[in-house]
């Protein structure tokens, strides 16, 4: 069963496409990073998964069933932390928990209280007076309190300072490690995801550019550096994802189609997740067009 599965999913706002022809499968039981530049359609995709938005065309299935938008019964299986961590600012923390308890039949009050006390968030404090990091933690505690099977986080650390960012990701990793929970989180910064995600989906311009297990992706890609005039040769046997040139020197991000070639004049090194994502986001090399990486062609069978 996939946590999220889409088939030619599309969403349009008026005449503007936010997402088009997107087919992908997010595996269950993993921590999946959804990466892409701002405006790539990440929020649109996640909002459709948690039931805030309806697709314009195509279909989306969540935890093997219809999305919560069409079947409200699915709402209790999906926890969501929205990008701006909306909270009722006038509510005390205890009121926010009571809000969660009243609206979620599966609510786990003891765990929610423990979680917040471990984080040092006082129950009597008003939500609006908490620091940004604490608000994010409270929002996460609310989403976890309903004991979801799928936890979706939209840019959870985007507006947090580095310390709060680390604390939040630690909290999230601790929860994800307990197992049974599928996590999907989006970010426009790969660095945030590198430590926590084991599966990666790269979304750009409303389409999936790259998808797969993080380790597999790293194993499939190499960074080549060598003479510029031999760059075309490499492109014949492998897929050049991205190329950059300085003088006579070429640096190529390559997806291997066969075992790594042993070229005397080239240096080969593994890539980082960040280089990988940046390479795919900047697109094919200018001289020689790589095969188009549409959403459909990149989905593993």
């Amino acid at each position, binding site marked *: 069963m996939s946590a999220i599965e889409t088939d030619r999913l599309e969403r349009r706002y008026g005449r503007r496409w936010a997402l088009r022809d997107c087919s992908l499968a997010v595996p269950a039981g993993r921590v999946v990073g959804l990466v892409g530049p701002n405006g790539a359609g990440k929020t649109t995709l996640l909002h459709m998964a948690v039931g*805030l938005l309806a697709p314009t065309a195509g279909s989306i299935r969540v935890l093997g069933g219809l999305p919560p938008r069409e079947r409200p019964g699915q*709402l209790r299986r999906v926890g969501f932390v*929205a990008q701006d961590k909306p909270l009722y600012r006038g509510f005390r923390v205890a009121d926010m928990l009571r809000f969660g308890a009243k*609206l*979620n039949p*599966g609510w786990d009050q003891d765990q929610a209280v423990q979680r917040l006390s471990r984080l040092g968030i006082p129950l009597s404090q008003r939500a609006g007076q908490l620091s940004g990091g604490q608000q994010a933690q409270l929002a996460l505690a609310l989403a976890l309190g309903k004991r979801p099977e799928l936890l979706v986080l939209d840019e959870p650390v985007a507006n947090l300072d580095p310390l709060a960012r680390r604390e939040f990701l630690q909290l999230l990793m601790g929860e994800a490690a307990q197992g049974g929970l599928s996590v999907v989180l989006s970010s426009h910064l790969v660095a945030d995801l590198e430590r926590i995600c084991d599966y990666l989906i790269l979304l750009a311009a409303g389409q999936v550019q790259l998808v797969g297990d993080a380790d597999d992706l790293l194993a499939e890609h190499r960074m080549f550096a060598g003479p510029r005039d031999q760059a075309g040769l490499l492109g014949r046997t492998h897929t050049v994802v991205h190329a950059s040139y300085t003088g006579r020197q070429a640096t190529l991000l390559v997806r291997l189609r066969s075992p790594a070639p042993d070229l005397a004049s080239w240096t080969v090194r593994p890539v980082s997740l960040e280089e990988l994502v940046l390479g795919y986001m900047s697109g094919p090399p200018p001289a020689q067009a790589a095969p188009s990486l549409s959403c459909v062609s990149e989905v593993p069978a």
Partner: protein
Amino acid sequence: MIWVAWRQHRIQLSSGIAVLAVLAIVLAWTGHQMTSYLHTSGLSACLAAHAGCDSFSHLVENRYGWLLRNVVYLNFLPMLAGVFWGAPLVAREMETGTCRLAWTQSISRRRWLAIKLGPFGAAAAVMAAGFSVLLGWWLHPFAQVSFGNGFARMDLNAFDVQGIAPIGYSLFAFAAGTTAGVLTRRVLPAMAITFAVFLPARLWVQSLRSHFATPLTVSYRAFGTSPRAGLGDWVVHSQIVDRLGRSVSDLTVITTCGIGPGSQKANVFTCLSAHGFHQIDRYQPASRFLAFQGIETGIFLGLAAVLLGIAVYWVTRRSAS
């Protein structure tokens, strides 16, 4: 569930109730003052005896006319339910983004909307009913006193603030505010729209009211006193006609019969009957009060239902986050 709505909107609800409570105390106090004045001045006794009580009426008007005429401002009360309760109800959550939190809990949007609409709608209806009863009592002593605009139950001033119509008005205002908020997703525009929609709707239905049932007519001597005076009719239209039933202006009558400061009353009346001038009033009798209240309330409840239907549809089917 109700706790969620209460916790979220308790300041709005309780401040609204507090303002209305103060107003209710003012009404109760002035109502008491006026009633006791009617007794001590002897007007009550005069009216009970069905005597001509014009001089008493003038006394009452001098003392309390301004207060009675201000009743017209109470027509704005139901609108407040729309502006301060309806408009922010959903719009505020959309404005602050908390709808993304609320709509991803384990309850459907329909349910979520119901637990917001229920308590506020009930509060608006109960308070409208309370004020209606209070104002019915407040105005009751003046139903038979006529000065300028009447205050009988069928008269525009009094009809609109008592009976069941105020319940219809406030639920309509509440629904208009809520729906405007759902559609605009912003509190202030929703408030402005509620304000802009409520009054025209009220005035429009008010202009239709005289057609709810065919008016009755009564005919009597021109410039005379209607045989139905003091019965609490709502006189919709009044005109002088000649022998052939053609409408004539007051000015024509005055010049034809030479009515002026020096003219003799007897001569004038002889002239009037010689020309066949008589007054024709079209009126809605007081006995139609309940039927008219029912129709008026029905119209506004119907409008409220349509508006709430739009709000529910929009929130559950159309609204994006």
